[in-house]
């Protein structure tokens, strides 16, 4: 595997020398190189400069030894014109012409990094974004052992100095769209998630240049435009590209070739294999299988017997095979809106008001995507940690608030049966159809058309003046209880479209 901290033209030559020398080294050897301005102060040996950090300090020949961390965190990527570096040539010559190239882009400490950008007083401080649990934390916070998913009470115990913020979901969405928009300029197919994206760069070399150069350029453009750093991993498939990036976080760039896949995976912990969650890992560890390499001892049949059909996938994945395509998900799997209450509550008016508000937000998102949902599900989280969830299929797919709200109210009535206050409530729309694709009702078409036109007018008004300008029905009970801005009520822990 090779790591390529985004190279400025000057340093590219040094990196090239490393790369060439590297070609005789074991497959897991990585190059170390400086970044940006650091390149000009680079040692003649082509080794890593201060910018690459001591953790990734290479040996005298400029190469990291096998087993060493591949590349240290780098402070910044200086803007530089893309260069057709010899590094790229050396790399390309190793890759078969038809090999798939997938780029995985991961935004480093996404929410926390944005908060540090928004308020420079937070720079260098341990920052946590989340309510109840950590949604994202800065690298300064991670030094205290904090990580996403950890309870805030535990986080406060481990790092009392941490700055805890509830977050700004609307702002994060804008930054993510900016970053993914830049990814689209490089790749004809990208698949996006909240803070990461897979880009298929296969066949783009003649148009955009070598994949490593493309990734370096993308990193620079993102940094210039947003001030955020991303980690890029390149590989012959999704799984390997993501794992390659994982070895050089934060702000790294690494590539794994198909020929190196098995060796690259061999010593990695079993949990890092795509498809191995907590439960599978526990089963495998109980069988004394701790690394991905050790998993290869099991036949496809044995894995299928253990885990069902996904077991066969694991058989291929532990050998570096992953055929999952990168596809633009124009139609999301689901649209979720969920929030914790500022205070646990059993007040039905408040709960129904919140559910109605979440339903109206989800419907608006569906209308913007020109989708109608057939399934509505409601999730409740009680203050004692227990949860409940139920879904209902609508008689006809819909994107208008009343149909969804009616289903949601029915689900809430069926679910909220315990005499325990609620901590959170959420609503999900799924099973989407393209709006207008459904067969209309003969005698209700006029009414349905008027209703659709009404809600589209609402959307236009809200688009111009903010969602909060129109609040309907039970959601009015939230007035005075929650803060509002032009985006609507300020929710404690908003969730986004998946």
């Amino acid at each position, binding site marked *: 595997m090779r790591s390529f901290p985004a190279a400025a033209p000057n340093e590219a030559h040094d990196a090239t020398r490393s790369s060439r020398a590297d070609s005789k080294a074991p497959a897991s050897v990585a190059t170390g190189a400086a970044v940006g301005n650091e390149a000009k102060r680079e040692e003649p040996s082509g080794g890593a400069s201060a910018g690459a950090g001591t953790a990734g300090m290479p040996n005298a020949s400029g190469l990291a030894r096998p087993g060493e961390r591949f590349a240290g965190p780098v402070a910044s990527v200086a803007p530089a014109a893309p260069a057709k570096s010899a590094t790229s040539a050396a790399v390309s010559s190793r890759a078969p012409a038809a090999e798939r190239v997938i780029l995985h882009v991961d935004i480093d400490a996404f929410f926390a990094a944005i908060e540090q950008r*928004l*308020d420079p*007083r937070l720079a260098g401080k341990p920052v946590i974004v989340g309510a109840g649990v950590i949604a994202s934390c800065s690298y300064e916070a991670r030094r205290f052992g904090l990580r996403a998913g950890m309870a805030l009470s535990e986080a406060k115990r481990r790092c009392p100095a941490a700055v805890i913020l509830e977050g700004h979901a*609307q702002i994060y969405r*804008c930054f993510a769209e900016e970053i993914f928009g830049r990814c689209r300029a490089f790749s004809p197919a990208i698949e996006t998630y909240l803070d990461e994206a897979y880009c298929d760069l296969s066949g783009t070399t003649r148009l955009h240049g070598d994949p490593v150069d493309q990734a370096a350029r993308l990193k620079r453009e993102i940094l210039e435009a947003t*001030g955020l750093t991303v980690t890029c991993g390149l590989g012959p498939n999704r799984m390997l590209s993501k794992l390659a990036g994982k070895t050089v976080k934060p702000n790294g760039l690494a590539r794994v070739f198909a020929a190196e896949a098995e060796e690259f995976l061999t010593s990695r912990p079993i949990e890092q294999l795509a498809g191995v969650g907590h439960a599978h890992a526990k089963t495998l560890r109980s069988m004394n299988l701790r690394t991905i390499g050790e998993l290869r001892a099991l036949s496809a049949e044995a894995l299928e017997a253990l885990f069902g059909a996904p077991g066969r996938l694991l058989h291929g994945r532990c050998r570096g095979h992953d055929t999952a395509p990168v596809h633009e998900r124009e139609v999301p799997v689901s649209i979720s809106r969920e929030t914790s209450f500022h205070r646990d509550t059993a007040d039905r008016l408040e709960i129904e008001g919140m559910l109605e508000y979440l339903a109206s937000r989800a419907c608006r998102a569906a209308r913007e995507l020109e989708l109608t949902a057939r399934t509505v599900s409601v999730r409740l989280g009680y203050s004692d940690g227990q949860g409940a969830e139920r879904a209902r299929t609508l008689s006809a797919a819909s994107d208008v608030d009343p149909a969804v709200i009616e289903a949601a109210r029915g689900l809430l009535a069926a679910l909220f049966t315990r005499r325990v206050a609620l901590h959170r409530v959420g609503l999900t729309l799924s099973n989407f159809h393209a709006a207008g694709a459904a067969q209309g009702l003969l005698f209700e078409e006029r009414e349905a058309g008027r209703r659709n036109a009404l809600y589209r007018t609402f959307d236009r008004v809200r688009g111009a003046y903010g969602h909060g300008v129109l609040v309907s029905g039970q959601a009015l009970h939230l007035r005075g209880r929650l803060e509002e801005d032009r985006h609507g009520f300020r929710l404690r822990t908003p969730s986004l479209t998946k």
Partner: protein
Amino acid sequence: MRSELLDEAVTVRAEFQGGVVTPVAFRRRGHEHRVTRVNARWIDRVPRHPHFYFSVTDESGGVYQLQLQSGDLLWWLDAVMVED
């Protein structure tokens, strides 16, 4: 650290150069705050006319969030970041 909502229409002096808008100063309650640094900028493209947002630091070290609504070219002072 938390953001306190202000949601006030404000007068802003800004530079429009090279297709980029940069706030230079804004007036609030009769006092002009000179922008010493634009910490971050982002665009919300969901509305029909994009909204341009800026996190800025003024000469006294205060951190504010400004918004320019491109539809009507109105500036809003959205929030101020306050230390707890």
